[in-house]
């Protein structure tokens, strides 16, 4: 037996190119359908896990899928906004814990997520270094953001303007990075988290400027009376919030009308969830309440159907590959008839010849299986990340 294995191995090693081609063909034959299935299954599991972990989502009426993708995966396509009053209503209902989200802005390609501290507890996010944002203008970044931009606790990021030409609108805010999160394997790794009010400052709904009552601001005062001070255009507005100027920041208007992208609602119990859902069934209500898991389920059902057709096609391709490989082997045996005849003449049994051929086939398939396993493992390690990057920001 050892002799046949040795001869089989040496034959394959000698005919390197032919062996490599065979191994490659068999590897692909095994890997493609397996990887396709794994990619879809694992990514779907990751997507649905995140959706399943988000009980209810409140947002503006419109595309449910866009709402879910934006709120859960910080997708660039933004749904219409809702007022902060919606968050206050959900919180005030006593039926669910409410977590606000405002995901309009981005910083160097990473989504800025305006939210509350409850978000971190809700998603089970832990700090790798530093602390959570504490003052207006501070941010906490996901592990992916830290790696991509080479920034950590103590560093800074600047919010990106929405358009170069709208200088009076959203303008860049320099944010201090106070902490970096542990890798979570979710879209949170690629996000920049700020206090909701910081996101509103980026929006331009809040700002900080020189104290008009101070002597240093005289040049910025247009007019002054006993009850009011009017500033002129030279008034310096801060584009970085520091402990020294944070008290100068303020918001104008009623925050109930300030924008949000969505509200995550975590019901106290099933009954509370049902009651909450009932409140948003009324056609007259401006907002919609969706169950992210159900919304994604519809999408994934389509994906799985397509996957099945793809896998079927790959299986048929594999059958064709097997046929070709079999032909190659048979032709190879034909060419080696003389060699086998010599071995028989020398005293080798038919069993030995059969074992010799079988060992070659086994080595090729074993090598292919190993290679396919490694490739599949690699795909599995990055499948979620890959698909989530496709879906997310």
């Amino acid at each position: 037996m050892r002799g046949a294995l040795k001869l089989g191995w040496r034959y394959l090693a000698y005919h390197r190119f032919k062996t490599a081609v065979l191994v490659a063909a068999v590897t692909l034959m095994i890997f493609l359908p397996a990887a396709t299935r794994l990619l879809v299954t694992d990514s779907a599991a990751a997507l649905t896990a995140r959706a399943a972990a988000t009980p209810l989502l409140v947002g503006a009426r419109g595309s449910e899928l866009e709402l879910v993708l934006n709120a859960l995966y910080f997708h660039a396509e933004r749904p219409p906004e809702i007022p902060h009053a919606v968050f206050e209503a959900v919180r005030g209902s006593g039926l669910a814990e409410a977590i606000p989200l405002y995901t309009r802005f981005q910083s160097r390609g990473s989504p800025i997520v305006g939210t509350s501290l409850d978000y971190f507890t809700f998603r089970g996010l832990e700090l790798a270094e530093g602390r959570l944002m504490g003052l207006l203008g501070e941010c906490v970044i996901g592990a992916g953001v830290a790696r991509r931009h080479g920034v950590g606790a103590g560093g800074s990021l600047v919010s990106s303007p929405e358009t170069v030409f709208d200088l009076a609108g959203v303008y860049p805010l320099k944010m201090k990075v106070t902490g970096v999160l542990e890798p979570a394997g979710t879209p949170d790794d690629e996000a920049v988290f700020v206090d909701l009010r910081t996101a509103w400052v980026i929006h331009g709904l809040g700002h900080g400027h020189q104290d008009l009552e101070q002597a240093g601001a005289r040049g910025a005062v247009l007019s002054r009376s006993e009850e009011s001070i009017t500033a002129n255009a030279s008034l310096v507005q801060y584009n970085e919030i520091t402990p020294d100027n944070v008290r100068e920041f303020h918001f104008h208007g009623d925050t109930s009308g300030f924008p949000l992208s969505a509200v995550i609602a975590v019901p106290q119990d099933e009954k509370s969830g049902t009651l909450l859902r009932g409140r948003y069934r009324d056609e007259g209500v401006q907002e919609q309440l969706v169950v992210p898991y159900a919304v994604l389920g519809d999408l994934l059902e389509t994906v799985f159907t397509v996957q099945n057709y793809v896998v079927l096609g790959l299986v048929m391709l594999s059958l064709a590959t097997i046929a070709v490989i079999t032909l190659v082997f048979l032709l190879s045996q034909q060419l080696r008839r003389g060699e086998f005849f010599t071995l028989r003449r020398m005293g080798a049994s038919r069993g030995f010849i059969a074992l010799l051929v079988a060992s070659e086939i086994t080595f090729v398939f074993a090598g292919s299986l190993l290679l396919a396993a490694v490739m599949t493992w690699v795909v599995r390690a990055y499948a979620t990340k890959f698909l989530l990057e496709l879906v997310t920001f």
Partner: protein
Amino acid sequence: MKRFILFSALCLAACTGEAPTPADPAAEKGRPLVIASNYPLYFFASELSGGTADLRLPDIEGDPALWVPDGEQVAELQAADRILLNGAGYESWLDFVTVPEDRLLDTTANLGERLLAQEETTVHRHGPEGEHSHAGTAFTTWLDPELAAEQARVIAGALSALQPQRVSDIAARLAELEARLAQLDRELRQAFDGLQGAPVIFSHPVYQYLQRRYGINGRSLHWEPDEVPGVQAWLDFQNMLRGHPARLLIWEGEPAAETTGKLREAGVESLVFEPAANRPEQGDYFDVMASNLAALRQSAPD
């Protein structure tokens, strides 16, 4: 062959993974962490908890109204099981500090119309938003022992929720604290009655609740105890005296000797009545009030 099987098994094992379990801070600690935003709340909480809670008062340098917590203080606030707020606009830092909202406890939230508006606001205007002001509410509620007792009751409720096993002990301590506040109330009323309705001036508008509680005929300046008022300030003061002939100026801190001298020349005596907002160097809230009472009694017109 064996190596292949082992390697494949390792590959499969590596494919599984478990999601991290979020930490539960309350469960990990033996005592609940309670942070008070000012000294009176801290004092009331410590009287009620009897040392069974981890009570903390942030180390604030300078005017508490201008406090901006540093990184460590922010982290401490975020880790607290409860943050005791005075409310009534005292904690302006809430406008720019991120804390878990469900841990905040506003001890004056139930006072409603019993809260007083802050006098003298400034309106400013810039940009397209138009006029807006930074007006607010008077926040020194603890100077009114009756309101202070209300705040203590709210704190007792929070501590009882955090430590259900100590409900009866907290109730007993609350009763004791209420009794002491009631006694303080009687003594303050007696001392202020000694003024017999005479007009007084306050160095700063921080005594609104004291004024209301004891019917003090008072008006306020904006004088710092350690600063000698300038010419314009003296003129404004004298203008005020014409319409409000006070003979007593109540300071929140020891005034400069020059200032008291000038006031005496104007026929106005000085008296220090500490608002007790900050932790005293010696003694506690009641000690500070006792010292205030002594000063009041001493300055009462014969």
